[in-house]
């Protein structure tokens, strides 16, 4: 398996390409833009884009989808309706499917947006805007923030330390690093401890 990242100037988002080295088939995750550089990169290596995974349907993660689908006949996977395509597969929490010879697992983590999902391929977690290096994704309400933290604690922080976090914005990280240094999650852990302590006092 080969993984490349592309820094999209549109929305300062990360676009990922995961390729199966044996079949030369590849997946694009969050096509924020589909620039000539990215196209040249794919063509130079003879990759055939067979699937597109969308972590959530915000424009700065999917703007390149229209161009991409004009060039490659790729299957699109997301948990909500996706602009620029009417032919896509809706995925749900806990789903698993295989594309390009790679097993993809779906973890629904709403909070940043209701349709946010994390794609897990082997030990790689494509977290979109739910979790970044050291920070949580932005939310519009206290409820959204609480929901995001709960879902992350339950589904993502239970993953092994050496799982790699590949976010929609910012640098990569690992679950071990996020467990130790993520400001939002540490706050959550402290609150849980405080609640336990308060219960103990009662």
């Amino acid at each position, binding site marked *: 398996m080969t993984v490349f990242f592309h820094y999209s100037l549109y929305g300062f988002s990360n676009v990922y390409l995961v390729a199966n080295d044996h079949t030369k088939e590849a997946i694009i995750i969050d096509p924020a833009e589909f620039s000539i550089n990215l196209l040249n990169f794919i063509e130079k290596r003879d990759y055939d884009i067979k699937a597109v995974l969308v972590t959530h349907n915000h424009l700065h993660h999917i703007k390149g989808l229209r161009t991409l689908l004009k060039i490659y006949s790729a299957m699109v996977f997301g948990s909500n309706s996706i602009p620029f395509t009417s032919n896509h597969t809706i995925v749900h929490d806990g789903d698993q499917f295989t594309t390009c010879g790679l097993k993809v697992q779906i973890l629904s983590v709403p909070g940043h947006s209701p349709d946010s999902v994390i794609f897990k391929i*082997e030990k790689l977690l494509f977290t979109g805007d739910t979790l970044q290096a050291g920070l949580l994704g932005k939310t519009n309400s206290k409820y959204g923030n609480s929901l995001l933290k709960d879902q992350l604690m339950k589904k993502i922080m239970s993953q092994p330390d050496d799982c790699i976090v590949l976010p929609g914005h910012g640098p990569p990280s690992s679950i*071990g690093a996020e467990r130790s*240094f993520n400001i939002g999650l540490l706050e959550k852990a402290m609150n849980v401890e405080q609640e336990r302590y308060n219960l103990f006092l009662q």
Partner: protein
Amino acid sequence: MYSFTSCTVNDCNTTALSGSDFCVLHLSDAANHIKALYETIRQQKTIKNINLAGVPLDGWILKQRQFFGCSFAGAQLNNIDWSDSVFRMCFFDFCTIKNAQFCRIDAQFCSFAGAAISDTTFIGSELVHNNFNGVHTVRCNFSNSSLYNTRFIKSQLAETDFIDCDLKKTFFLDISQTSVNWKFSNTQEAYFELTGADF
């Protein structure tokens, strides 16, 4: 990307080292295996998908190399010269790095999270889009480097220089600093508080 194949020892979930079925803890002849890997690596200019997680390395000369998708997570890296090298999507999480030379490197999309880094220089480097969250630095020098979009969240910086650095969109949230020199760097464009941060 380096292989995520697990060590073949029962109940060990650590990834196996490159060229082996075992992780560094369960490899019986680790020293010789690492030595053989070094012989291979030093003859190559481009090093791809190597997994050296947790290994102790000392005195390796890895100047002017290109590293893609490699893992050195949890390794003890002493007296290593990485000058003028290129790194893409490489992982140094929770490493111990002592007396290393990262002069004029070009590192993008790499993670040094939780690393303890001492007596190490990154002078004149492109350190764009990297993760230094939770690092402990002592006597380190990042001067004349671009740290665009790099994060130092919850890091502890001591006797560390950031002289004449590009700190645009660099996150220094919740850090502790002792004798840190920010001279001539654009600290106004870095984020020291979450309020107003654009991420």
